[in-house]
């Protein structure tokens, strides 16, 4: 299994999904060798408790990230999972400073210098190891990303020579070149897992290099797994992939262990409406604020909390001011671990106004914290949830209508919570893993 992020080093839903799926596969008795790039250090999480694999969060992780796949200790609850860390930086949303730092650490270890591997169907530049903008999406993909992707592929092929496996499962575009290269060198079947596409991330201003990598990965794979039919539609229409090999496996959520609720909720007469996610065009923060402005014409005892960061953070702060609702809007910055759980538990309502959302795990997390949910119809998760409120992301009046209704009518909150809990229990990673297992078995035959 070729991954890009894994808890606690996550910038979005991908790490959460990879963790959940791996856990489900473990339960289903599938042997998983999970290959990860070396994580970038974050300065924010030293005080945070993660209920995720301890192998990275524990002291001594530096040693775990030795070049070319020194074995890292897996979380004790995994029975069939092994982890391998490769000294590569795959971190598209990092800051230039953190990138520089990580490169310096790699250089100190003398990790460079291998011969680069061929990627079937792709021309990629050789790794430069230098920070600098890549491609046409400024602020998003930083550092010499393409070079690092190639380096990841090279190291993965090297690792593959020493490991036994029946099949390659690669998550999202950054690992597709590695998947293609390992498949070419070993003759094993390749599954690529599409958690999002360049069209979801960048609208119509697609980065051509990223698109080419995605396309090569999808066409070169034996099976393409999509996180929703919405995404499957994009894979068929925008990437021209043969329909027969494109399958859908929905994401799921892990229910939090009970008893971790704050004993002393803040006494307040204000309701909290939460936006949580990257502040980017794709996530629709603008629609959230325009709906908020309408809500405030009917309901004043409310605070709109925007949790997250992204390239539109500044613009979104300005928009709140322009709309004259600044004092009702709170920006928390990027939240991790317990802070995420805490903000969910404070919320009276979670809104996901995404313009384009391949799946969207956050609404499931909100439900798992017993928070009612409004999601945009332009999301994969709306294919699996029925006991939530749904709106078109652009219909801010309807969004406001529904927000006001949830705030005003306790019976509506109650039924959404009750039914949401029941529905949530039907979405398990074990089921998603079983679907993947079926796909593996078809290919292994």
């Amino acid at each position: 299994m070729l991954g890009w992020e894994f808890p606690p080093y996550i910038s979005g839903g991908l790490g959460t999904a990879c963790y959940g799926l791996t856990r489900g596969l473990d339960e289903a008795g599938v042997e998983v060798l999970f290959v990860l790039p070396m994580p970038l250090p974050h300065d924010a999480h030293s005080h945070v408790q993660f209920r995720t694999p301890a192998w990275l969060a524990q002291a001594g992780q530096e040693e775990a990230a030795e070049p070319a796949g020194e074995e890292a200790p897996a979380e004790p609850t995994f029975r069939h999972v092994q982890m391998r860390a490769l000294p590569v930086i795959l971190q598209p949303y990092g800051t230039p400073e953190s990138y520089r730092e990580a490169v310096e650490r790699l250089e100190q270890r003398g990790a460079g210098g291998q011969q680069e591997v061929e990627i079937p169907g792709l021309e990629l530049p050789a790794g430069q190891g230098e920070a600098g903008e890549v491609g046409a999406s400024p602020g998003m993909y930083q550092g010499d990303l393409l070079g690092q992707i190639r380096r990841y592929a090279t190291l993965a092929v090297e690792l593959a020579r020493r490991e036994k496996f029946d099949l390659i499962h690669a998550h999202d575009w950054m690992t597709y070149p590695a998947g293609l290269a390992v498949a070419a060198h070993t003759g094993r079947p390749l599954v690529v897992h599409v958690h999002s596409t360049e069209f979801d991330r960048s609208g119509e201003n697609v980065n051509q290099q990223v698109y080419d990598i995605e396309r090569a990965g999808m066409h070169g794979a034996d099976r393409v797994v999509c996180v929703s039919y919405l995404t499957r539609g994009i894979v068929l229409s925008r990437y021209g992939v043969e329909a027969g090999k494109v399958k859908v496996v929905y994401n799921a959520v892990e229910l939090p262990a009970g008893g971790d609720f704050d004993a002393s909720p803040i006494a307040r007469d204000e309701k909290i409406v939460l936006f949580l996610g990257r502040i980017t065009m794709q996530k629709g923060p603008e629609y959230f604020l325009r709906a908020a402005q309408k809500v405030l014409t009917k309901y004043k005892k409310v605070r709109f909390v925007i949790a997250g960061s992204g390239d539109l953070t500044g613009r979104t702060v300005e928009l709140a001011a322009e709309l004259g609702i600044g004092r009702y809007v709170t920006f928390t910055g990027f939240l991790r671990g317990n802070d995420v759980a805490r903000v969910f538990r404070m919320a009276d309502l979670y809104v996901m106004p995404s313009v384009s959302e391949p799946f969207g795990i956050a609404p499931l997390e909100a439900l798992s914290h017993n928070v009612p949910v409004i999601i945009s119809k332009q999301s994969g998760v709306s294919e699996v949830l029925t006991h939530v409120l749904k709106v078109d992301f652009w219909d801010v009046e309807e969004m406001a209508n529904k927000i006001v209704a949830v705030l005003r009518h306790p019976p509506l909150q109650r039924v959404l919570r009750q039914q949401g809990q029941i529905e949530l229990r039907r979405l398990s990673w074990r089921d998603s893993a079983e679907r993947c297992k079926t796909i593996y078995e078809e290919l292994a035959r």
Partner: protein
Amino acid sequence: MASVVFYFQVHQPFRLRRYSIFDSGTNYFDDQANADICRKVAEKCYLPANATIAELIGAHDGRFKVSYSITGMAIEQFRLYAPEVLESFQALAATGCVEFIAETYHHSLAFLYRRDEFIDQVQMHRELMADIFGQDPQVFRNTELTYNNDLAAVAEEMGFRAVLTEGADHILGYRSPSFLYRAPNCRDLRLLLKHYRLSDDIAFRFGNRQWESWPLTAEKFADWVDRINGNGYVCNLFMDYETFGEHQWADTGIFEFLRALPGAVMAKGDNDFLTVSEAIDRYPVSGELDVPHMISWADMERDISAWLGNSMQANALYELYALTDAVRGSNDARLIEDWRKLQTSDHFYYMCTKYFADGDVHKYFNPYESPYDSYINYMNILDSIRARLGQAAS
């Protein structure tokens, strides 16, 4: 001798338009959708079914009888959108082979909340039946066959001779719905119970090709009816009239089945057809039926959880009837009429969360994308009613 008692329910709600918190108008109804649906169902069901019934009455020299309950909501929409349907019902009334049953004019759940409002709505419906069909109904059915002992007492007090309800297994136990029963707290009121298995064979299973008895022929069904002989008197076939052509499409052969059924039934022994009043005139009461809790003909549960099964439904009904005194005392005829149309049980059925995720019959009849959308819309309209009463929003 076994007597088939056909009773058909005819109802169309005034569906609500999308009404957001930012709306301020006082027209709450989706006139376009209501007109379209009324005309569509008239074409597919009411007109061809009435023509078939008229033809059968003629062909069998008045020995084929049926009973109808038609809500005030349906009659009003026929007047607005399909007057020829109303005329064809009046023509059926004139044959003398058709009996009309009383119910609440607005197809409401008022009995559960306000007795005064309930009695007024039943009176309105009685007057409507007298006015358009020249009949004074002797038999009562409450909305969706909701029923308990209290309802029996009130119906008897209002002068009705019988009430129709569901022959629910959990009420009947080993007893048969083919006998007549009385309520424990009434002097003489009769109960006619729906034979749900045979009724649902027509209403729900007729077109189902996976059903072991498919295809259902009139002869096969007449055999089943004939088996009641020796263990009962009546075969109460109670169903929505929309069964014919709307729930079971014409291409299932449902009209051919209906056309052939009277002949097939009457060909066996001396089986016949009766209206509801004829049935209570002819047959004795065989036992007492104690129904302390509300039953209905809905869902597997046969209770009222389809309309009052979650907090949203309970809240919407509570808030609706909390306005009763203010509305009734307002002397504003239009306001009273709007408020009464909001009492139609369908609005609460749309808020039902049972089976919602499974996409079953609840979803088929639901003009909303979800029960939540339906509740939000309804509560926004109640706000508007409150504003017209000069009350602040809750």
